[in-house]
């Protein structure tokens, strides 16, 4: 088994996503620990623009492109055949994917096909075979050593800085896309469109919880968000109650975020919510219950009715 690192790129056929850059940073750290070349796989259809972006990444040694109709929606049944084909060549010691919903869908399927274990959601590379990963909603950190020759790892993107995006000039090599399995097909998708920054890469996030009472009140948050260029997030309770869409959920089982500033509004601070945001640099809590557990992690707490505080905040921010 070789020692090279295969990284699965996160993209939507038109753009390379930021999560790829964070995952590549974990690859760079593994290389510093003795791993081999960093190769980036772009599996999709008509992803020329993505390939161009990838070719400019100075830390990538090789760009691999699998382009086929059955890869258009990156269904894991299809993409895993491409990845397994590459891994079976024996050059790789690592498969890395971001711990996004795409990466989480794909990586364990590949690991099982290769008969190796997976290390999920790493936050630190300790050595060539040892990683730190949070368990129990981040209430403990496990130092895990992998004994498989091929290490399949998903990377928590907020725990790694983004690698540089320009300066490289790598040639792209095209790789085989095995014939379609045809056991699954894409039917459609409803993607949220927003002018605001993406949750997982935003510098500031303002999130609303059950205290917001209804989706109709979210414009109060959005008005503040727009003043400071923030992304808008939510607790599970706000999503379950139908105030906002599922992709806004921050937490153990939603999105993990770590912005410079996180403002929690009408959120109590359950373990599962904290798991998704407690690595933010500065945390602000606005809650009318001074006993709310969110105040235990907040750098600045304001005990107030959010329906008064939010309009005031918007005004103060000018």
């Amino acid at each position, binding site marked *: 088994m070789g020692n090279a690192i295969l990284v699965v790129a996160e993209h939507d056929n038109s753009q390379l996503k930021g999560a790829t850059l964070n995952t590549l940073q974990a690859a760079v750290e593994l290389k510093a620990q003795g791993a081999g070349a960093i190769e980036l796989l772009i599996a999709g259809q008509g992803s020329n623009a993505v390939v161009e972006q990838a070719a400019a990444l100075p830390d990538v040694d090789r760009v691999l492109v699998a382009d086929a109709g059955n890869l258009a929606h990156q269904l894991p049944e299809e993409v895993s055949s491409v990845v397994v084909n590459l891994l079976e060549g024996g050059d790789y010691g690592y498969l890395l994917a971001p711990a996004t919903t795409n990466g989480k869908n794909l990586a364990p399927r590949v690991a099982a096909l290769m008969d190796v274990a997976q290390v999920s*959601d790493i936050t630190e590379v300790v050595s060539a075979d040892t990683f730190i*990963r949070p368990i129990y909603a981040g*209430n*403990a*950190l496990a130092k895990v*050593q992998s004994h498989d020759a091929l290490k399949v790892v998903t990377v928590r993107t907020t725990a790694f800085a983004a690698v540089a995006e320009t300066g490289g000039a790598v040639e792209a090599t095209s790789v085989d896309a095995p014939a379609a399995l045809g056991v699954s097909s894409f039917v459609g998708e409803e993607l949220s469109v927003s002018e605001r920054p993406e949750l997982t890469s935003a510098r500031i996030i303002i999130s609303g919880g059950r205290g917001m009472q209804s989706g109709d009140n979210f414009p109060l948050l959005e008005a503040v968000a727009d003043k400071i260029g923030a992304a808008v997030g939510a607790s599970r309770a706000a999503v379950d109650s139908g105030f906002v869409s599922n992709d806004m959920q921050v937490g153990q089982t939603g999105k993990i975020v770590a912005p410079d500033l996180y403002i929690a509004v009408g959120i109590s601070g359950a*373990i599962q919510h904290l798991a998704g945001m407690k690595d933010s640099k500065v945390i602000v809590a606005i809650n009318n219950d001074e006993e709310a557990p969110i105040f235990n992690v907040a750098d600045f707490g304001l005990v107030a009715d959010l329906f008064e505080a939010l309009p005031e905040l918007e005004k*103060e921010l000018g």
Partner: protein
Amino acid sequence: MKVLVAIKRVVDANVKVRVKADNSAVELANIKMAINPFCEIAIEEAIRLKEKGHASEVLVVSIGPDTCQEQLRTALALGADRALQIKAEDSPEPLAIAKLLKAVVDQEQPGLVILGKQSIDGDNNQTGQMLAALANMPQGTFASDVEIEGDSLQVTREIDGGLQKVSLKMPAVVTTDLRLNEPRYASLPNIMKAKRKPLETQTPEDLGIDISPRQTVLEVTPPPERAAGVKVGSVSELVEKLKNEAGVL
């Protein structure tokens, strides 16, 4: 069609666990245990498929020490027909769990296997995808809606950007997300009835599966504590502190 549901016994979601003083693991003695919340959702979905006439039988499986029979009994009380415990001392790794479940799939030939998307102790999010790979089935992970149409399964998935709908040829694997359904509670008469429902046991050896670990947990440590913050008296004080003290605005 038979539906197979895999459930895990885990620390109750409301418990904040602590790391043992010797940094070997988290303290689990005398802690409230429960069915992993995502597995409860899996059980509920299987029972609903039975109630709608899509499923003829619901089999629940748990892998672990005899204590997990408590969770299997709960699943029977909720409406599962049969239970299977595969005996294992500690919790095996997801790859080993997936191999054991694959062996059960071979025995039972279910048309659908439902798992949780994630166990809330290990936070692995691996087993369903691994089982799908080993059983050569398509996978509908992080499902918020499941519809059966003939021999195919329409699954709505919660993804980073919103929702995605895929169509899978059955047999297939589904892993549940939080909004798939709201699990019911077991009624007292059903809890009594569940005591008479069949609960079998098998061992990894019976199934011919090697469950030896591929990883070693070298150390478990508590995460860094956040320093206690301050309460501010007004919105203007808050904004002032964020601008001048924290420098984040």
